[in-house]
């Protein structure tokens, strides 16, 4: 089906909920004095969007808004995932002391607006729409990064993010213009058809165009060499925003990248194996990117003492792991990516939640704030953090291990030994710094000056749910991998 703008509205319930909540919260902010209601309203909107996305699962697949966005299994998977990411960000914001007295109306408006943008990033099937959605998410993220005005680090991060984002999106839109020149269309499926036929166009110009477009995607998912902004931004932004950038906006970047490379620059063959268009071996390029990204992320994380910055480098390294599934050109690789992104949600958001509890308690986010955490009233947060750390490192009974297992399986199935070996070595390296946090929490004795850890039920419950999820999906992951399998449907008209 190919619906016009008005007909499409019936299938855009998740986005409509978010848009109405965005405008509603902004207006309500002017009327009420109990500002906490705004956050609660935003939470309901995200929950509603998640529910509405889940309800779309049975709908007929097709194009919406005159072929601008697609409604297919892949889009619905990411809509569900992204509304849950926004939900987590709003929930964390409600429990964060950093954001007290900081214009909640504007904050939740921007957060929900960013969430709406990520929805369109995941479902755009047109270069123009994809670019607009990306830019929309970027612009709101810049403001959110520098949202605490008194924080110099936050302002610095926002400015760096803005400048870096401007350069990356400029490169990207130039690449898109070259692709439009070569294919004569902005629509993914049409580009795929036109470039499929070998011609002089599939030469170096196409390669340069794809490289330029990759700069935009790479910036969003923080792939080396487009990662420079992320340590500073992750460290400077308010913690819930950092958590959202590392999960929501990154996942949206992956969704957009998968759709562009698999629909426009590849075609599906038999047995779940994909082939690139002739004359453009983009996987080789991204294999290199994946290897450098995970190695640099892990090596840089080794020496970090600020836990937020450490998690930023860890998030770069994980982008490298997820890219392993991207380069194998098979359904097995794609479903491993979706599965890994879902497990990454649990363990990474969990780690950020515990970090936020420590930050709320002691106003510090460095390694010393974790010293002897388990022995000064923080036994449960420490236990949860240990679960998240081991899961991020990819140690067996946790979800992170299963995620890595599927990624490695896809890579080894394709006999890309080099990539598999580098990734395995990287996992070993990463264990060092993840285990260092666990060691600090359990084996170091707290000093007299360290504050007693008090756990509030609000954030504690969330960390608990995520920890349970990390363990459950490490033991019984069937439903999640089935969902990922079912979601590998790209509507191509």
């Amino acid at each position, binding site marked *: 089906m190919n619906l016009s703008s*008005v007909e499409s509205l019936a299938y855009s319930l998740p986005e409509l909920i978010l848009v109405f909540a965005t*405008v509603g919260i*902004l*207006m309500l902010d*002017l009327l009420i004095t109990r500002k906490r209601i705004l956050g609660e309203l935003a939470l309901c909107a995200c929950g509603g969007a998640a529910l509405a996305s889940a309800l779309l699962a049975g709908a007929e697949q097709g194009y919406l808004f005159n072929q601008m966005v697609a409604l297919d299994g892949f889009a619905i998977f990411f809509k569900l995932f992204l509304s849950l990411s926004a939900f987590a960000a709003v929930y964390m914001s409600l429990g964060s002391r950093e954001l007290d007295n900081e214009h909640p109306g504007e904050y939740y408006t921007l957060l929900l607006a960013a969430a709406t943008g990520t929805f369109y990033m995941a479902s755009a099937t047109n270069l123009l729409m994809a670019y607009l959605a990306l830019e929309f998410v970027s612009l709101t993220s810049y403001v959110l990064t520098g949202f605490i*005005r*008194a924080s*110099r680090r936050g302002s610095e991060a926002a400015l760096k993010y803005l400048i870096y984002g401007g350069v990356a999106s400029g490169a990207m839109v130039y690449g898109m213009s070259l692709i439009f020149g070569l294919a004569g269309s902005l629509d993914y499926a049409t580009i795929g058809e036109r470039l499929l036929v070998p011609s002089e*166009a599939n030469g170096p110009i196409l390669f340069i165009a794809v490289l330029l477009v990759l700069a935009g995607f790479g910036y969003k998912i923080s792939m080396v060499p487009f990662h420079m902004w992320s340590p500073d931004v992750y460290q400077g932004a308010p913690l819930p925003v950092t958590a959202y950038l590392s999960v929501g906006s990154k996942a949206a970047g992956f969704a957009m990248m998968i759709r562009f490379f698999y629909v426009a620059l590849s075609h599906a063959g038999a047995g779940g194996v994909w082939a690139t268009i002739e004359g453009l071996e983009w996987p080789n390029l991204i294999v290199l990117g994946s290897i450098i990204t995970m190695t640099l992320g892990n090596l840089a994380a080794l020496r970090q003492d600020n836990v937020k910055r450490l998690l930023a480098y860890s998030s770069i390294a994980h982008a490298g792991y997820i890219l392993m599934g991207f380069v194998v050109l098979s359904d097995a690789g794609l479903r491993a990516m979706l599965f890994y992104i879902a497990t990454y949600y649990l363990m990474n958001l969990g780690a950020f939640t515990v970090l936020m509890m420590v930050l709320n308690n002691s106003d510090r986010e460095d390694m010393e704030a974790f010293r002897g955490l388990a022995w000064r009233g923080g036994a449960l947060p420490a236990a949860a953090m240990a679960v998240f750390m081991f899961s991020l490192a990819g140690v067996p009974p946790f979800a992170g291990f299963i995620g890595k297992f599927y990624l490695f399986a896809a890579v080894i199935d394709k006999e890309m030994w080099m990539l598999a070996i580098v990734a395995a070595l990287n996992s070993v390296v990463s264990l060092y710094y993840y285990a260092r946090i666990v060691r600090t929490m359990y084996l170091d004795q707290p000093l007299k000056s360290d504050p007693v850890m008090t756990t509030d039920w609000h954030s504690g419950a969330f960390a608990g749910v995520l920890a349970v999820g990390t363990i459950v999906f490490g033991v019984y992951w069937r439903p999640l991998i089935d969902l990922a399998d079912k979601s590998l449907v790209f509507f191509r008209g």
Partner: protein
Amino acid sequence: MQFEYANVLVFLGLGLFLCAFMMGLGSLVRPHNPERKKLTTYECGEEVQGDSWINFNIRFYLVALIFLIFDIEVAFIYPVVAVFKQWVADGNGLFALTEIFIFISILVAGLVYVWTKGDLQWIMKVVVPVKPADDPKQSQSPKVGGTIYVAD
């Protein structure tokens, strides 16, 4: 296909030629009295004062942004007005009216927001949120030309 880019080349050449032609023509016709003062920075006929790297009021941008929003509003309404009769004839009049109504009400929401927040007032009470310890230069920041800070 490659030939179509010749248009761009011709356009570029024509542009360069026109620039050179105009400047050349000008230099032939105009009087030529070089003087030292003509080389100084021009600032609306005033003597140049101080550095250009100073703080100035962010409200200039704010007002420009608000103006831009309503400028674009008008730009979007014109095409609707142009085709409205046609749409009414096709029986879609109510639909077009609803659509433009939603569009304008979103903009009005923006106006209400800006108004309530006091951004339409040029002289505005500003609570400076920056802690003094956070910004060592805060105490000795220069008087900002043309702006009035009224701290609560």
